[in-house]
């Protein structure tokens, strides 16, 4: 007896890029306040289909839910090559093996795989703007201000869990420049073992208050400004900030540059609003002394952020793909690498250096991808194969590797105190053709530090792309390896702790434990 043979099973119309645990955005929107213990972790995958990367997860209530994760599988795969070992962390509660996200109710859990690179302290919920896309939902109507002693207690708790050193402290909010005790806070934190302090601001006070500029100038060796700057168009300003406040931004940049305060322009970019202004922001930074960095953040849907099409949005790799077309080829996605210490999907970074011929060149183009990986020890096989023609002595290699890892880390910025030695090692040992930098970095002449600072301010630019996750793009592994931690307060014990940034912004029960909301009290209105 013969049986007819069928055609067999067809191939899927997608390729699984990697398997992930994710969450259902529809369940989240139906009940954003649900207790974290009731949040379901769902099986899913990143699927490459039609030249894009989609996050697909199976929800018992809604079935298969598909959202756009990233625009370019090619660039995402490239980024995944850049991973390095992570640092040990100190859990906030010993024995906390609860699942994500409920584990974060008790701070960093045992299963976190990265320490705190950046500690973000929300000083207050109050702001002098009511930005339509604010993830923290701050506004002038909110008056909750964290007491100075609570902020310092939170910082000291973190210091005790980070072996006596915090790499980066970011002061945020709300609008941190409106914090009534900011001067006392800056004095207190600069007296602690904190490498760098960043102030995350809209720039309104910087544009108008001479005394405040003086305060920043006084602390400029340790303090850097992250200035929200969304591009050149009035449309971008109105969309993201609710008004055309470009003149304040321009004035703030001029005043910070004149005061020699290292500034990073932080751009919130949205598809169809200002995704064509990324090149402008980079050029503005290249042309302005002491604007040492640009951070491009694709808008994400936590907090007040809404109106994002989850099936067609600007993503990490989308920003990278747009660089070449918008900078006339001056910067391309190959000039950036993933930040080796973080999850490769979470951040990419690149350095541009102006050489003695006045041309901007990237660190990766000067060193070469293969050599960079070799120095970072990311490709042991490649290293083994090149032992014979390796021209860098082993001791030098170790120094260069550590320097590069420092440079390509969340803690890095041009005002970092160890920058001189980092550039010295890289410039002197790697023959980058950056003669003046190398000479200055290796010289020990009087006034060398100030000259190096000014040279870095004019001739080095750090470009980063930082895509934060909302529930449409949230995957567990990125939370687990997150190193940007928001200070929170335990709802039951009042203990100071912290939790990954994207988790705090996305889940309301965690958001309510931010230090400004949990310990905040109405301000008296007096500024001391």
């Amino acid at each position: 007896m013969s049986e007819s043979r069928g055609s067999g099973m067809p191939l899927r119309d997608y390729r699984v890029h990697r398997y992930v645990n994710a969450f259902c955005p529809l369940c989240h929107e139906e009940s954003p306040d649900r207790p974290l213990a009731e949040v379901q972790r769902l099986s899913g995958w990143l699927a490459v289909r039609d030249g894009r990367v989609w996050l697909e997860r199976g929800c018992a209530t809604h079935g298969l839910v598909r959202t756009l994760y990233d625009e370019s599988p090619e660039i995402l795969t490239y980024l995944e090559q850049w991973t390095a070992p992570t640092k040990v962390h100190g859990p906030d509660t010993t024995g906390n093996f609860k699942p994500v996200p409920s584990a974060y109710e008790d701070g960093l859990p045992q299963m976190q795989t990265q320490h705190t690179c950046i500690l973000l302290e929300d000083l207050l919920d109050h702001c002098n703007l009511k930005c339509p896309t604010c993830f923290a939902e701050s506004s002038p109507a909110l008056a909750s201000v964290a007491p100075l002693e609570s902020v310092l207690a939170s910082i000291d708790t973190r210091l005790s869990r980070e072996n006596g050193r915090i790499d980066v402290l970011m002061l945020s909010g709300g609008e941190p420049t409106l914090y009534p005790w900011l001067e006392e806070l800056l004095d207190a934190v600069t007296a602690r073992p904190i490498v760098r302090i960043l102030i995350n601001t809209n720039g309104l006070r910087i544009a108008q208050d001479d005394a405040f500029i003086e305060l920043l100038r006084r602390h400029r060796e340790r303090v850097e400004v992250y200035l929200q700057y969304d591009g050149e168009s009035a449309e971008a300003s109105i969309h993201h900030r609710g008004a055309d406040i470009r003149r304040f931004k321009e004035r703030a940049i001029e005043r910070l540059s004149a005061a020699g305060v290292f500034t990073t322009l932080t751009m919130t970019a949205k598809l169809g609003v200002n995704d064509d202004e990324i090149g402008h922001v980079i050029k503005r930074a290249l042309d302005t002394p002491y604007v040492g960095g640009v951070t491009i953040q694709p808008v994400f849907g936590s907090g007040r952020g809404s109106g994002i099409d989850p099936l067609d949005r600007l993503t990490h790799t989308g920003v990278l793909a747009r660089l070449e077309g918008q900078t006339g080829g001056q910067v391309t996605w190959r000039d950036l690498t993933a930040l080796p210490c973080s999850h490769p999907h979470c951040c990419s970074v690149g350095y541009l250096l102006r050489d003695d011929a006045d041309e901007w060149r990237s660190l990766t183009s000067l060193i070469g991808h293969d050599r960079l990986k070799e120095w970072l020890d990311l490709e042991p096989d490649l290293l083994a194969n090149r032992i014979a023609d390796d021209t860098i002595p082993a001791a030098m290699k170790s120094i260069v590797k550590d320097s590069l890892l420092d440079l390509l880390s969340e803690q890095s910025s041009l005002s970092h105190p160890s920058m001189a030695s980092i550039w010295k090692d890289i410039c002197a040992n790697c023959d980058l053709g950056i003669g003046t930098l190398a000479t200055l970095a290796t010289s020990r002449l009087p006034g060398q530090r100030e000259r190096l600072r000014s040279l870095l301010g004019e001739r080095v630019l750090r470009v980063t792309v930082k895509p934060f996750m909302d529930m449409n793009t949230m995957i567990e592994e990125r939370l687990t390896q997150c190193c940007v931690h928001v200070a929170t307060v335990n709802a039951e014990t009042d203990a100071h702790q912290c939790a990954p940034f994207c988790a705090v912004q996305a889940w309301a029960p965690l958001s309510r434990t931010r230090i400004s909301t949990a310990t905040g009290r109405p301000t008296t209105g007096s500024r001391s």
Partner: protein
Amino acid sequence: MSDPTLDPRIVPLDDGPPTATSASAATPFDPLRLCIFATVALLGWLLGPIALAFFAALGAVGYARARRAGLLRSKCLLGDTRIVLAYLVGLVALAIAALIIGFGPWRIT
């Protein structure tokens, strides 16, 4: 299970992971492109340089936007989107010249 028409993020079952039913019921090939090619040829025959100017300008605008949005290489044989743009702009110029001077296989009578 919610109504799949409510939210575009919810994937209908026949568009999701293949099931035994959807696998065995393979859709016959739809030769749509052949119909499109014939229609484009018809328009070219009827309208000549006007059709060329229209489609080349449309293509140039489309490629300019795509390049601005980050497309550096196209699946087009010419590869680099700058070369494709130059080709399309050239076609527009050719079509305008043909309309003004009246050369080529098509004439305004």
